[in-house]
């Protein structure tokens, strides 16, 4: 077990792994060890000792932070200056059977964890400006730049975001930050079926009112949620305008301030599926096809769903222990979507590819990329795809 507290020590660990040809499991606080394929490293590289904010310039809207810094600590520091991570990273701990609030920022970026603000603010990859890391080549390197606008060579920070530690062990990240909105209101429409709900989601985020969250929870009581954030002066005006714009017979109400914030935290963290260990899928779909895809799956598989990001993201929990892989994957593929087996017992996540299988040409290319950054396969081999 390696517990480095400097980049040099991370370098030593990777060098040693390289010399001994032993694979490394890379962890922050381990809250996502039940996500993806089970890690198979012979040694653990624990990066939680690399903790702390290196440079925070609120006026520059950016922060440089060591990879093992707890997300909660980073959030607190940003909050004290009225700022936050605009991509609103979720806390996946509880839904994956771990404690809440445990994630490190490195793990968030390595797993590309984002939140409901996607339509307005993008996802994790849109907020990673620069990375320092040690690649599987055993070389420490920097990529990206500490500015928001940059076309200087390949955008490697994007490649590392979401790569689950399979290309490089990230030691330091420079992230964009932004102002916390003064307040927020959520417009709620109740009692809609999925077709009607998708139409409201679409109309909501196509409106010029700058909707920053759009979700549909079919249960416990079916409701569509549209979030508006901004200055106090504008938010209630916009909520009224939005209500006027959207034509529906559904009963409508509003949540304000902390009530609204709490609602979006629970959508973000998929709290409706916390507490069970039944298979949970995470589907990326063209929003207009979400309801259709879900109804196709539901014909063969008893399940419950939560639609986030206007339907571009569907969480689907199976009622039984069978993840129904072929139903889910076929339905997702048929609408040009993809299906991640987000939560399942380790043996299932070994037998079934948790990440949506890539078409052969793309799979070959991804494999070549892995080989280029980690030719010996010492960084989290088979964590994303078996044998790679």
């Amino acid at each position, binding site marked *: 077990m390696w517990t480095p507290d400097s980049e040099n020590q991370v370098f030593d660990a990777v060098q040693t792994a390289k010399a001994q040809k032993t694979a490394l499991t890379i962890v922050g606080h381990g809250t996502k060890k039940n996500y993806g394929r089970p890690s198979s490293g012979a040694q653990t590289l624990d990066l939680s000792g690399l903790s702390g904010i290196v440079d925070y310039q609120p006026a520059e809207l950016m922060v440089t932070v060591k990879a093992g810094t707890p997300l909660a600590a980073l959030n607190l520091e940003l909050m004290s200056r009225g700022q936050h991570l605009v991509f609103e990273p979720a806390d996946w701990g509880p839904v994956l059977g771990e404690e809440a609030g445990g994630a490190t920022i490195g793990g968030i970026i390595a797993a590309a964890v984002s939140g409901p603000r996607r339509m307005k603010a993008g996802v994790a990859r849109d907020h990673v400006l620069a990375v320092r890391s040690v690649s599987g080549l055993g070389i420490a390197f*920097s990529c990206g730049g500490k500015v928001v606008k940059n076309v200087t060579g390949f955008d490697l920070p994007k490649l590392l975001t979401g790569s689950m530690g399979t290309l490089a062990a990230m030691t330091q990240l420079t992230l964009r930050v932004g102002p916390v909105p003064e307040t927020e209101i959520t417009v709620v429409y109740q009692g809609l079926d999925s077709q009607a709900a998708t139409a409201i989601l679409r109309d909501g985020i196509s409106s010029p009112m700058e909707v920053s969250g759009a979700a549909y929870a079919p249960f416990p009581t079916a409701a569509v949620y549209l979030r508006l954030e901004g200055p106090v002066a504008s938010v209630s005006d916009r909520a009224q305008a939005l209500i006027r714009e959207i034509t529906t017979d559904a009963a409508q109400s509003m949540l304000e301030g902390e009530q609204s914030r709490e609602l979006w935290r629970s959508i973000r963290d998929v709290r409706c599926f916390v507490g069970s260990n039944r298979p949970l899928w995470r589907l990326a779909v063209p929003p207009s096809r979400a309801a259709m895809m879900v109804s196709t799956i539901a014909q063969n598989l008893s399940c419950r769903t939560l639609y986030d990001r206007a339907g571009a993201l569907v969480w689907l929990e199976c009622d039984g222990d069978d993840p129904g892989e072929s139903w889910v994957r076929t339905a997702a593929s048929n609408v040009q979507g993809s299906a991640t087996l987000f939560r399942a017992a380790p043996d299932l996540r070994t037998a079934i590819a948790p990440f949506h299988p890539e078409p052969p040409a793309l799979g070959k290319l991804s494999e070549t990329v892995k080989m280029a950054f980690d030719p010996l396969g010492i960084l989290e081999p088979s964590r994303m795809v078996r044998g790679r």
Partner: protein
Amino acid sequence: MVLKAAPGARLFLFDDNCITAPKSVLLRMAESLDHIIAGLAQICPEPGAVIWKEEALGVWESDAFVLARARPLAVALPRTTVQVSQILAWSHANKIPVVPRGAGTGLSGGALPVTDGIVLSLARFNRILEIDLDNRCAVVQPGVTNLSISKAVDQLGFYYAPDPSSQIACTIGGNVAENAGGIHCLKYGVTTNNVLGLEMVLPDGEIIRLGGKAGDSDGYDLLGAVIGSEGLLGVVTEATVRLLRKPQAVRTLMAGFASTHKAGNAVAAIIANGIIPAALEMMDNPTILAVEAYCQPGYPLDAQALLIVELDGPAAEVDAELAAVRSHVDAAGATSTTIAHSEEERRLIWLGRRSAFPAVGRISRDYLCVDGTIPRFRLPEVLDRTAELAAEFGLRVANVFHAGDGNLHPLILFDSGIPGDSAKAEGLGHAILKLCVDVGGVLSGEHGIGIEKKALMTHMFSDDDLRHHHALKCAFDPQAMLNPGKVYPTLTRCADAGWMPVDGTGLAFPHLPRF
């Protein structure tokens, strides 16, 4: 058919890998040129789809980085993805380098041909394939111009956000390759934040899809890695781009300041107070004077710096923000403040900004447009140092920049008619870019590296850093057949002197506003 270097081509400036082909290669090529033309014509039998005649190749010799020219063996203009795939597979098998090309408006020489290779033009990929408002996106071919997407959805109340000032001419394929920016990128992001998916042909002819309407897919973010890769990793044959609903309200304010420092403070105050304007632009006094003389937008001539702030969004919010911006600007000591009260007044304010490049072109025979990004808070010091450097080199500089994101465009004024002036300008440009890196910035904010700045890459990146860039390149293009010699310095250090001297006659795309 005679095979020789194009007249005026400064082959000696660049390294092997870039444009000079060794004699032996040229001879081999001459022998096989007929074979090459026949091969391309077989794949693309349509009339005019293969260009090879000496007199017709001239227009393909450079992009908007006009300093460098090179004549390709031939130009292919395929119409389908299958044809692109066949061309790449065929040139891969025959070891013929390929340079992809959009509209050729690139400012860093990214589409500069190689003399022993072919140019693959995407000009015939000019159709908008689908407008899908349910999913707020459009599927377009790469040769579609940036502006035509916004035009196609304008009546429907939508637009495509990244707006480079070359937008009436540049293509989406070129935008993807250069990760193009624009004036409204501060709030809405650059190309990479607005492209959902791509169809791409790999250098060996394999066709792949990255991302799509669904957005975030599993696996490595190769979509993110490909955008901004300057045509080095694959040829884009289709793009799915995000469409945004047009804002309900737009408000524009301009403010004059007695110094660039004060204007810089206003920028910092606006951002630090949680306002992200749609656009936040600045220009210095030499530019203000040139612009006012050129198109009379009514700029304050006594101001040492002019700030233009545009806010957009829901009307109620924009009005509140405008009041806040106004007070920050006043607190920072603005000497004049004008708020546009009509669409015409707004148009005038922007006309001045959009005319900055041609206006500067009026007061100087030539100028070089430098493109670098710095951390915002270093702005005053970088401007001071730029002025000092300019004095050392004995040249004048006019500054225009996207102040909100720290993207500078110093315009170096010189006269190519004066012996030694071009070299001085070039030296000053390099010095300014190194300064950008030294204060924690980068070599390019939006124009890319191309051949123009590749020699400076080692100033920003260590060999260890660059090894990982090469690793990615090798994964996509192990034979280095696609756009060879661009972006990265090769083993033989590149002596390239890449700058864009523009005079009235040689101006590339003179009808376009320059930012």
